[in-house]
Structures are given as C-alpha cells and as structure tokens.
C-alpha cells in the first residue's frame, strides 16, 4: 500500500484533492483551528490536532463548562456503580500539556464569510478551520406538555451532570411501591441503548431500596437497540417490575403534566412519583445558527467530516448526519480522529490516510451483566457505511458477561484519557 505524500505548494496543488484548499497564512503565521464543544468529539479533535501538529497549528477550544461530566456511565451512577465525581473531567491537561487555548464561554454564532466565532462574553475568535461538536438539543413540544422549563420536575438526564443527579434524587424519594415512568425518545437520538440501560439501572436501584416499586416505559419505537438482550435481562433480574409499552399499545401517544406529575399514555392518566422525559433531539443549536443543518442534523462529507455546506467547517458527533454510525461518544471520538487528520492535512503537510471509523457501545443490565454491540465503518461518497458488526448474544455465560462489564471499565478509562490527555 502506498500513499501519496501531500505536499502543499501554495493552494494550487490541492485542486484535485478531496480536501479543500488550505489557508496557510494567518496573521500570526500559524493556521488557526477553533473547536466549539469540549465533549467526546471536540476534546478529542482538539487534543489530536494539537498533539500531532506539534505546535504548527494554533488550537482554541470553546466550552462553557469547567468540567465535562460524561453522559456515558451516568446510568451506572444512577444504578450505584459509579460516583458522579469520577465522571467529571477538567481541561487542565489539554491547556497545560497540549498548549490548547481553552476558552470557557458559549459560542453564540458563526460568521462564515468573516470566518469568526462570536462568544457570549463578547468578542469573537477567528479561524482557518472550525470544528463544531456541540452535541444535541431537545425539540420542545415533541412530548406534549413538556418543554425545557419542566426539566427540573421531569428531568431528561440526557445531558451530563446535574440532570442525572436530580433524577436519582427523585428515584430515591419515591414512596414505597411508587411508580417511575420514562418517556423514551424517537429515532434518531444519542446513545441508542441509553434509555434501556437506564431502565435496567433504575430497576437495579429500586430492587435494592424499593422492591415493590413499578417502572413504566412509554416508547414510540417498535424496536430498540439490543432489545432481545435487555428483555432477557429484565426477565431474569427484574421480573414483574418493568412494563414496556410500545407503539402498538399507545406508547407513541403520550402527554405529560409536570404540574400534577401525571403521565398520560393512550388517553389514560397515571400519577407517577418520578418521571424521566427524554424528548426528540436535534443538533446542538450553534450548528443551526451557523446555517449548516438540513432538517434536524448537519450533513457531512464522510471522508473528512466537513460540512456539506461549508468546507471550512467540520461537524462531529451527535450533531452530524453521516450515515450508519450511531450517535455515541465512541463514534464522536472516532470521527474526531478522522477530522483531525483531514484538518492537519489541509493546513500543514501532514500525511492523510483513508478514513476508518469504529464504534462499540457497552451496556450494564445488572451487577456483572454487561453486553455490547459494535461495528466498523468506512467512508463512501454518500455516507459513512457499515463494514462489519457484532452484538452480544442472549444466553451468554456469567463469566463472559462479567468480562464484558470489566471491559467497559477499561473502555471508559481509555476514551476519557484519549479525550482529555
């Protein structure tokens, strides 16, 4: 296998390349990359560009939070398998060891002609390449009766940190034999197995502290990720506790009443003691503001993760619409490495290799009962296309399930050090 070394002599040399013409010259003499969002996609991209360009590229990371609380493993926090403190990660190493300018602020808009990002705190940051990885926002009104003002009463717990703590506190405060309800989201949404891992973890917690409690799930989908595995697990570990209501039984016809803590399914109102409403999702608002969405998501070029609408902007992770990859932290991390390579190739003379993507999502059903699903992907013209995949099987041995769970702990340590150094 041979690769053509890309040596850029001015901008003319790249006319035929998949990447757009590089902007080598800047005021400081160094090309500037701005990354919006310090999560699974953004932190990884910033770190890889800074690390691999060895100072040749100036990297700025814009992220409002001082600590990123991972959504991954937040269900395990609810189940009592993780401490919230251990899910928080600071940006200190990215700044100190990788020389990334970390700016704790919100990006409020993108001027694509001037190539600047506006900040909530005032001022703007110029870029040669911009990377957007803002994750998701919720579509208000997608669950009748719910908007973001209701999230203190009926939390979504689908962004990291305090929302998961709130949900857990509400579960702990349920009266004996009380009812927990989840409104599950329609496709596509971040972390396809996430709601069902959550149900498993809520059931695990309730079995310990409130074993006569009930769980209702209203689901607009007929099928969900790892369905057979979850259903087997729920039967084995939490028999009689979980009532999953699919669309055939009205699971898509839902209204919530935060004022009275009622959930109405198929016209029938139920008073509940804790409610987890996971609404429909769309790309993080900044992508929409930048005018890069089509429908709810931002279409991208598979080989480079460049926006289909602006070649100077790459869009990673949940916000992108790319084809076959699920919206997951692993996927965002994988896409970030491809984008980092493409950006370095465009702005410096770094070599560019064919894009390879992969994903694996682990879920915990009960103590030492872990399952996983995964696939590899490649870039085609049209989309990121699945190459090969696997999924855990029903009826696996206890040993294998335990090893799978332990593997997920290793993965968490691996991906967080890959993101934050």
């Amino acid at each position, binding site marked *: 296998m041979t690769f053509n070394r890309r040596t850029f002599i001015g901008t003319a040399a790249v006319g035929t390349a998949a990447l757009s013409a590089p902007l080598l010259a800047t005021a400081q003499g160094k090309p500037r990359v701005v990354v919006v969002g310090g999560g699974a996609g953004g932190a990884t991209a910033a770190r890889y560009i800074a690390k691999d360009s060895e100072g040749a590229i100036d990297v700025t990371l814009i992220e409002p939070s001082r600590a990123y609380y991972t959504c991954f493993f937040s269900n395990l926090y609810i189940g009592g398998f993780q401490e919230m403190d251990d899910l928080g990660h600071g940006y200190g190493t990215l700044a100190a060891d990788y020389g990334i300018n970390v700016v704790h602020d919100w990006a409020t808009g993108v001027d694509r002609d001037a190539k600047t990002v506006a900040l909530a705190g005032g001022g703007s940051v110029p870029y040669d390449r911009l990377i957007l990885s803002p994750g998701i926002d919720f579509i208000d009104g997608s669950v009748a009766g719910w908007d973001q003002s209701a999230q203190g009463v009926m939390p979504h717990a689908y962004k990291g940190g305090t929302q998961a703590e709130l949900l857990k506190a509400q579960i702990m405060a349920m009266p004996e034999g009380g009812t927990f309800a989840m409104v599950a989201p329609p496709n596509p949404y971040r972390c396809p197995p996430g709601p069902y891992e959550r149900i498993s973890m809520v059931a695990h917690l309730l079995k310990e502290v409130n074993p006569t409690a009930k769980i209702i799930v209203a689901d607009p989908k007929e099928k969900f990720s790892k369905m057979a595995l979850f259903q087997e697990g729920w039967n084995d570990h939490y028999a009689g506790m979980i009532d999953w209501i699919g669309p055939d039984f009205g699971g898509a016809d839902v209204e919530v009443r935060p004022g009275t803590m009622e959930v109405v399914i198929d016209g029938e109102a139920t008073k509940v003691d804790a409610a987890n409403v996971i609404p429909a999702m769309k790309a993080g608002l900044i992508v929409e503001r930048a005018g890069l969405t089509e429908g709810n998501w931002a279409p991208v070029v598979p080989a480079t993760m460049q926006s289909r609408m602006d070649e100077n902007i790459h869009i990673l992770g949940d916000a992108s619409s790319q084809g076959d990859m699920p919206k997951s932290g692993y996927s965002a991390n*994988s896409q970030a490495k491809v984008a980092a390579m493409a950006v370095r190739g465009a702005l410096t003379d770094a*070599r560019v290799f064919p894009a390879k993507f992969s994903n694996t999502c682990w879920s915990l059903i009960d103590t030492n009962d872990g399952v996983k699903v*995964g696939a590899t992907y490649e870039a085609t013209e049209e989309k990121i296309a699945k190459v090969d995949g696997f999924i855990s099987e029903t009826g696996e041995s206890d040993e294998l399930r335990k090893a799978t769970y332990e593997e997920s702990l290793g993965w968490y340590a691996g991906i967080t050090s890959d993101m934050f150094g």
Partner: protein
Amino acid sequence: MRNATRSSLALAVIFAASALCADEIGDVENGADLFGYCSGCHEVGADAENGIGPHLNGIFGRAAGSIDGYFYSDGLNRMGADGLIWDLTTLDAYIENPRALVSGTRMSFDGWEDAQERADVLAYLRAYSDNPANIPEAEPTARPSEVELPPEVLAIQGDVAYGEYLASDCKTCHQQDGSDEGIPSITRWPVDDFVVAMHAYKRKLRPHPVMQMQAGRLSDEEIAALAAYFKDLD
C-alpha cells in the same frame, strides 16, 4: 465444529504454510514419550492433580482457564471468558507458540516447532478426554497453525506514521500508557507477537468479537504498521 474445520481447511490452502495430517491425529506412543517435556508441570491420567500447571484430564472441549482451584494467569482467564475452548486446533496453536495465542500466559514453554511432534502429544492427551472436541473419528483432521505466517508477511516493514493513525482507533479502549484494567495493554509488544496475534484474531482463532472485527478489516501492511508503532510506545 465441522464448519470450523472446513474454514480452517480453506485458510490452510490460502496460507499454504500449514501442516496437513493424515487420518490419525498422531502417534500415541511417541506422544507419551514426548509428554515428558510437559510432565514437570502437568499431570494427566488417574489421580492427576494440579501442580505448577493445571492437570490435563478432560482438556479437549474444556474452556480455557476453567479448572476450579487452579490459579490462572490473567491472560488465560481472559481468553476463557472470551470463549476460547481447547480443541485440536486451539491446543495445537497453543503448544506451537503459547504466548502468541494467549498473551501473558505463565506457561514457560517456548513452543513446539515440529507439527508431527505436536500431533503425537495431542494424540496422547486425547486419550484422557471423554468428549474430544473437533476430532472427527475417521476423517483426516486439518491442523492449520494460526501462528505460521508466510515469511513475507512477517517481513513487512511497518509504516510507523500510518501505524500511528491506525492506532488512534485502538486507543479508544487500549490505553496509551499501558494500563490494563479490563482491557489488555498492547504497548511495547515484540513485533512478531503483535503481528501473529492480530492475524489470529483476523482468522477468528482468537475469540473476541471486537478484536475479530477490528483485525478483520486490516491488511497485512496495516497490521505491520500497527506493530511497528506500538513496539516503541512508552
């Protein structure tokens, strides 16, 4: 198992380096003599007990690392949990090059190069297993070795820069600093061991779905590139 044998046969043809044997697995009597190399650590037969190594009664068809009361290496435990079953193919690969099949095994044995000798000692051991796995009674049994790669594959000089890019895909799970909680360390492996292990996953001889999938899409050059990169990682 029949299918496994078939696909092994196909592989043997592709890689053309494997020893194919006749109807009999091997010579039991010669195997009994050769077992002398093993008996310092392993017992087999009536009253066999665990010693330095586990006893070998009933080894065919048994999951790796599965004898109660024997303290296995992490590597063998992991392989057992991943689903490695001892059968003719896997045992043959293991005694040919123990560390290539099970990274971190404590079995201090460099491996048996001679295919006929391996066949003989396995024929001897087989007599102590009630349900020998993967041994058709009459048909010839193919015994392709996962570890015998054509020399030109082992000779490929890995492109370190390409390896570094490919390795970014590994580092979502395998930690850069060599930590091995839950997921094994893959840094600083000798190049040949790395290459052989990846080919063993690629051919689905090593059991692990994620690794089989990841290795499955790598070319010989890409495996060499990864090995060259990880060899020197601090």
